[in-house]
C-alpha cells in the first residue's frame, strides 16, 4: 500500500477500481480497520463507510444492497435491513446510531480513502 498526500487530506490507496462491482460494495482492510467501499455506478459516485453495522455490531455493510431513499444514497444492512445514508452515515429508519463515512476518490483506476489514521 502506498500513501499519497494531496492537499491536506492524506489519501491511502486501498483497491483497484475494477475489483469493486458496479452498483455494489466491497470490504477493504487498512491496518485494523474494516472499511466498506461502494461503487455507485448508477450515480457515478463512490462512497466509503465503516464496515460494521452498529445495530448488532456485525462486519457486514459491504455486503449490503445500495440504492436511494427519496434520492438520498443509502446502504441497507443485510441482517435486519437497517438503512444508512452513504453521504452522512445517518440512520434512515429514525434510530439513534449512525455510521462513520470516509472521503473517497478514484484516480487512474485506483481507489483512495482519505482521513485514515
Amino acid at each position, binding site marked *: 500500500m502506498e500513501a499519497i498526500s494531496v492537499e491536506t487530506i492524506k489519501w491511502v490507496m486501498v483497491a483497484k477500481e475494477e475489483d469493486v*462491482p458496479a452498483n455494489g460494495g466491497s*470490504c477493504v482492510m487498512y491496518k485494523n480497520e474494516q472499511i466498506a467501499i461502494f461503487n455507485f455506478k448508477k*450515480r457515478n459516485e463512490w462512497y466509503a463507510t465503516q464496515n460494521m453495522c452498529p445495530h448488532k455490531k*456485525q462486519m457486514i455493510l459491504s455486503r*449490503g444492497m*445500495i440504492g*436511494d431513499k427519496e434520492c438520498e444514497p443509502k446502504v441497507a444492512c*443485510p441482517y435486519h435491513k437497517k438503512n444508512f445514508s452513504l453521504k452522512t452515515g445517518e440512520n434512515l429508519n429514525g434510530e439513534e446510531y449512525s455510521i462513520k463515512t470516509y472521503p473517497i476518490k478514484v484516480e487512474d483506476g485506483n481507489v483512495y480513502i482519505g482521513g485514515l489514521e
Partner: protein
Amino acid sequence: MAPADWYKENGINLYLNDPVVKIDREKKAVISSKGQTVSYSKLVLATGSSCFIPSIPGIEKDGVIAYRTIEDLDDIKSYAAKSKKGVVIGGGLLGLEAAKALMDLGLETHVVEFAPKLMPRQLDEKGAIMLKEKIETLNISIHLNKNTKSIEGEGKVAKMVFADGSELETDMIVVSAGIKPRDELARESGLEVGPRGGIVVNDLLQTSDPDVYSIGESALYKGMIYGLVAPGYEMADVVANSLAGGSKTFAPYDMSTKLKLIGVDVASFGDPFCTEQEHQHIVFEDKTKGIYKRVNISACGNYLLGGVLVGDAKDYNMLLQTYKNAIILPPTPEDLILGPRSGAESTGSGVLSLPDAALICSCENVTKGDICSAVTYNNLEDVAGIKKCTKAGTGCGGCVPMLNDLLTATLKASGKEVNKVLCEHFSYSRQEVLAIIKSTEIKTYDELLMKYGNGDGCEVCKPAVASMLASTWNDMILNQDTIQDTNDKYLANIQKGGTYSVVPRIPGGEITPEKLIAIGVIAKKYDLYCKITGGQRIDLFGARVDELPLIWEELIEAGFESGHAYGKSLRTVKSCVGSTWCRFGLHDSVTFAIEIEERYKGLRAPHKLKSAVSGCVRECAEAQGKDFGIIATDKGWNLYVCGNGGAKPQHAKLLASDIDKETCIKYIDRFLMFYIRTAEPLNRTSTWLNKLEGGIEYLKDVIVNDSLGLGEQLEKEMQYMVDTYKCEWKDVVENPAKRKKFTHFINSPIADPTIKFQAMRDQKKPVEWGA
C-alpha cells in the same frame, strides 16, 4: 437537546457549562457560577431530578452505584466485570430494567423491594405476583418487604443486612429507589417546596412566586412528581401557553403506561386499583401462560375506569382509548380482555368507532381526527406518510399498529384500494412488473429501472425484480449479484457473526451411506456445526465466505447439488417412507417426492416453497402443512395446496382428489406458475390464497377446470423452467470470475478476523451479537 444552531436560529441564548447558583427574586435575576447575571421577567425551573439515594449506613461503599445517567451505566458495566453477584435496590420500572442489565452482564441477580409487591405504583397485587413469577423464571431472585438496615463490607460491598434480621451477600449494589427532585435552588431562594422535596406548583405551574414556574420532574403538583415524558411535554405546553397570554391549565395527568419489561409486556391505565371508588372488575388469569388481565368497570357497567395487563398487552391501545374517551361499553364487557368468542364480530368494532378526539399517539399528541384527515387530504397511502405528515408513531412507536388500522379503514371508507406498488422506485404492482418483463423481454434490473422505474432502486425492489427475472428467464442469478439479497448473493444462509450455512439437496430426504459419510468428512474438514433440518436434510453452519466455494467443490464432487435453502424458491419435498417399507403405505411416496423435488428444484417464487408426499392418510410427511402436499389414496393421490407452518399456521386445502401422477404434476405446474404470476412480493401461498377473491373454489376453477384458458401456457412456462435448470453452485465452482467474489476483503487474502466461535455440546456456535 437540539443542535446548537437551533438555539441561535430561534433567538435563544444558550449558556453551557455554567450552572446557575442563585436566584435573586427581588432583582429578578439569576447568577451563574462564573458570575454572569441574567435578568428575567418570568423564570422557568426545569431542573429535573437526580437518583434518590436512601441514607443507609454503608451506602458510600465501593460497589454501590446509582442507576440514572449514561456514566452510571459505564460504572455498572466495569464493576460488573469483576463481580459474580449483584443486587438492585428498588422493584419499580427502572429497578427491573437495571436487573435485566445485571442479568445480561452475566451476574447472579437479585432485586430488593421495600414494598410488598413489584411496581407498586402501577400494578395490583395479582398482577404484581404474575410479573414476579415471570421474572423469577429468568433466574432473577425477588425479595419483597425488605428494609435495608445497613450495607456491610471492608471498604467495598460484601453483604446487605435487613431490618428483619436476614442478610444477602453481594459483590455490587445498584440503587434505583426512585427520584429526588432537584429543588435546591428553589429551596435556597425561599420558594415553597414539598415535605419530601419538589417545587410546589399550582394549576398554571407557578411556584409560590407567580413569576417563577417549574415543570418536569422538579415540580410537585398536587403532591405528585410526574416521572414520565408525556406529562413533562404537557407541562411545557401549559407554561408556554401561559407566557403567551393564554389560560391553559395543567390537570392531574393520566399515568397510563405500557412497556416491555425483561421480555414481559406490562401495562396499566386509568385507575388500576379502584380502591376508592365503587366499581366492578373482571379478571382473566392464565398461570400456565403467565397472563393476567384486569379491567375495572363503573358500578353502572357503562364505563371503563382502568386496568392492569401483564404478559399480554396487545389490547392496551384500544382499552386506553375506550377509557379516555368514556366510550359506552358493550353488554359483554368481558370481551374487552378475552376477545370476541364463538365466532362473533369484534365488539369494540375497531378503530373507526373511536371519536375524532381520541389521542392515538401520546408521544406527539396526535388524535385520530388529525390522522384520518391527513390521510384524506394529503392522499397518504402508507404509514410512513402518516409519520411524516403528522409525526404520529415517531416516538415510542407503540401506536404504529393503530396507524395501520386507521389507514386501511380510512382508505377503505373512501373507496380507495390500498396501494400495492413495489416501492418508491416502481409505481407498478408485482404482477404489472412481471407482465412488463415478459412482454418487453427485459432481462436485467438496470434496464428495467431505466425504462420503467425511477431513482436508484433499493433493497425492496432489487430482490423482488431479481426473483421475477429468475422466475421468467431462469438465468444464473449471480450474473446480477448486486441485486440479490445477501443469501442469494452468496448462495448460502447468513447467520449470526457473519458466517454462512450450507445445505446440500437431499431429494425426498433419501440418502446413501456414502453420501452421508461425504457430508461428515467435509463438515469435519471445515469444522462445521451440523444440524438436521425440519425438511429432512442436513445443515452445515459456520462456513466463512471464502470457504463456501471450497466446500461446494467437494460437495459437488461427492454428487451433491445446491439445496436452495438460501432462496425464495423450492426448498424440500419431505416424504414418509411409503409403500416400499411401510406396512400401511398405499403408494411409493419417496419415489414421487424425489420426482417432484427434481422437477421443481431451483424454481424461484415470490416466497419460499415447501412440499411433502405422504404414502397414506396417516400423513407422516405432514403434507397438509405445506405449500403443496400430496397424500396417497387407494385410487391415486390427493393434492392439497396453500398450507403453511410458520408464524400463522394454516392447513392446506384440497385442490383435487384421486388423481394420477401425471395429472398431479400438471396441476402443480399450473398452480405454481399461477402463484408466481399473481402473488405480491414475499407472500407465501397461504397468504396469497387468503387474499385471492373467490378463494379455493376460484383456484380450483383456474387450475382444474382451466376457466381462464391459461392451463397450457402455464404448463409451458413451467416446462421451460425445468428444462433450463442448472446447479448454481456448480456454475460458481467452475467459473473463476464468480469464485473470486467469495472473499471478505478485496485487498487482503485473510479472513474476517472478527469471526469468533465458542464451544457448545461438542460442536461450535458463534459468539452472541456484539460480544
